[in-house]
């Protein structure tokens, strides 16, 4: 009841919503910020140099093929396939020690029920003296516990990313007993540090990346990634 007579119904003021992917991206960046990472941004249109070469992704790597990467303007540019070029620019422009996180849209040439040509990533790098894999594990535990709670079961397994060595993929155990891949991480490949004019004899670094849609799907229990991009108000209004 409201107003002078006390008989008027409450006004149904519908709140709007920030897109769930942007909410999740901010949520992840806020976690990283609380740990000590500073947030930075970078362009979505990149050169092969920043998107691949500087990251030690050789010309033979499958990711560089036309079927995986969108090339633009007669191969002068690529739509960035990950947010890692932002980290490259950060390493080029800052002095170690440094800790940066970035998040944003990335593009891969996929379009099916489980993959979209555009999705979002959040990445972090930390460069300092004597950064090691045991520390990386500690950081990943901290991030995943923050997202999924301290009871979640986590496993690390070897993987391959040209820009990290050793590299790992990290899984969490879902409620139905299945392991779900949740992020990729590793010790920054010394070649990448050297590409960014960082003395790899003195400094080492760690890097990690999460798929924002993946986290949003798990947290909100959305089972079809395409729902995020239908712009359906019945869907969007649920995230106010």
């Amino acid at each position, binding site marked *: 009841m409201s107003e002078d007579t006390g008989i008027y119904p409450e006004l149904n*003021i519908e709140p*709007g919503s920030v897109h769930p992917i*942007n909410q999740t991206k901010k949520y992840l960046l806020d976690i990283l910020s609380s740990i000590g990472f*500073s947030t930075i941004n970078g362009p979505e249109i990149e050169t092969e140099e920043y998107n691949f070469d500087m990251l030690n992704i050789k010309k033979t790597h499958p990711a560089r093929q036309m079927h995986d990467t969108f090339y633009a303007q007669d191969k002068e540019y690529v739509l960035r396939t990950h947010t890692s070029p932002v980290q490259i620019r950060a390493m080029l422009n800052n002095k170690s020690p440094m800790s940066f996180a970035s998040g944003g849209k990335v593009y891969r040439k996929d379009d099916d029920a489980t993959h979209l*040509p555009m999705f979002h990533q959040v990445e972090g790098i930390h460069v300092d003296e004597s950064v090691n894999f045991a520390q990386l594990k500690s950081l990943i535990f901290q991030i995943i516990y923050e997202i999924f709670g301290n009871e979640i079961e986590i496993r690390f397994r070897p993987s391959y990313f040209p820009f990290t*060595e*050793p590299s790992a993929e990290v899984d969490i155990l879902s409620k139905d007993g299945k392991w779900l891949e949740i992020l990729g991480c590793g010790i920054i490949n010394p070649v990448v540090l050297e590409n960014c004019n960082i003395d790899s004899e003195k400094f080492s670094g760690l890097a990690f990346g999460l798929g924002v849609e993946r986290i949003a799907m798990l947290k909100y229990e959305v089972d079809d990634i395409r729902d995020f991009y239908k712009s359906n108000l019945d869907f969007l209004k649920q995230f106010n």
Partner: protein
Amino acid sequence: MKIAYPHLINFFKDKPSIEDVSEKLFQLGHENEIIGNILDIEFTPNRGDCLSLLGLARDLSVFFALDTLPVYYTERLEALNLNFENHATDDCPAISFLSIDIDEIPSKYEDYLESYFTTFQINKNNFFTDISNYLAYEMGQPTHCYDINKFNGNIEFVSDDFNENFETVLEKKITLSGTNCVFKSNNEVINLAGVMGGKSTACTRSTKQVLIECAYFNPESIIGKALKYNLHSDASYKFERGVDPSYQEQTLRRFIKIVSDHTNIKSIKYSSFVSKELPVKTLKFDVKEIEKIIGTNIDEELYKNSIIKLGFTISNNHINVPSYRHDIAHQNDMAEEMARIIGYDNINSTVFKIHKTQAPEESEYENSLRNFLASKGFNEVINMPFSNKTDASIKIDNPLDSNRGYLRTTLKHSLIENLLYNEKRQNESIKLFEISDIYSRKNNGEIENEKYLGIIVSGRVGNNYKEFSKKLDHQYLEEHFGIDKNSIFEIPRDGLDTKIKNKIYMALIKFSNLPKNLENLHNIEVNKISFNTYKPISDFPSSTRDLSFVLSDKNKIKELEEIILNFKSIYLKDSFVFDFYNNEKTNQIKIGFRLIFNSNHKTLTVDDVDNEIDNIVTICMEIGGVEIPGYK
């Protein structure tokens, strides 16, 4: 890649179970699934050396001791006088040829060879090709067999631009275009190098004289060709990931052994063409460096013994990297080897502190703007950036389809599409926004980037009795957001696929032109993200009904509201008061409820909705003093 457990287990002294093998493969980074007695393994692209029984057994030998290894032909090989010319030694630095002449084609295969075809249900082809296929599985090195009587003895390797027809051994006709590495004989392409051989020189079931080619191709020279011509083969998969550049003679000696297991060989001749010896990579044997990278103590003996089992040799405190390990270049790679062997989950984590780097939080304004617009009832959308061509748009060289060949240079069209989509879903009040970088091409070809805010509105201001009859318009945008009226424009409905008449208003504003002090921008209360479980949305249309009540007892209003707005049913999706009138002269209250029904499983019938309405009305009437003029 599929590996049969019974085949793999032959290599080991102890016979670990398939589950043990699977678990250790996983620890080594080889994701796998057990299907019967087959291990379906997904190898990372840097581990071409594992794409065979032998390679996999070698990787597992850090856990399970090796026993039986393949037997090779060890006699001296007579020189093959082959008229071969290599015109592209960078693309193919090493290649060997073997000619074999046999007495008889065997009528049956030895168990180990037969088992390969039966286990994987692979059709046999001909004797030599069958061995070639098995050998790629066993040793990882592809070979190609030519019927020696089908070409005139000269062969050349060429990398050049082609526009030429080629029929593969699988009788697929393709036209070669662009630069390709091929083998030619008599100026005819007989083999698309590293991908697939040609029909014209292929072996048949009657072939007794064969020329076997075994090469190392630079992966950069052949990558993408299989995809380009849709000629995926086991050979192309292996060559693209890099085979062992120094393994040709060993492979061909194994080939001879397998042939000799099956039939009498009349003649064997061999020749090798190595243009460039690949240097042996060496690294310092430095366990302290490995400890530093992993962050844990490493047993030096374990490190040493493990890498020796993997084929590394150690001399003068240096590690010699085996030629098949293209992935090893520095100490971090060796650290990964050791971490895999220890098991990533067995490495203890070490807590450390990150000291924040001082840098501007660039997204603060953008996030505040999002929250501000959401607080005003706007919903954010994110659209794909692909569109048709405009003057300044950036061209995608390899678009998903012709309608998505360029990057959008405005948010306008995406937002109109979003609006029309929601109108079709019977949304009567639509307030959407999008914030996105927009990329365009300047006259000088440089790429320009501007961040934009796009807003689109149409329909009712809100779903409540005060705003229900008001329409969203430019005034609403000006008053609520202080947007300069010149930035707001009407989108004409002419040409749009819609019968709805409401006016559409839009604002497209460069971020750089946005006022930094939008009304209370930074004072919006933002709730902590709640991650409520989302409810699946229906693809079926909604049905809307209005119920208008007349009450003479004002004290019954709240009771009526509570019944209707909290009514639980499987079909009632939403309800709100859209009309309220207090007639003081007659002392009557008129209150109108809009009820929206929907199902996730079907289109609701009139009867479905009538039943729901009847249930609601029945309960409402129990209040007393409530009427629905005109209802039944």
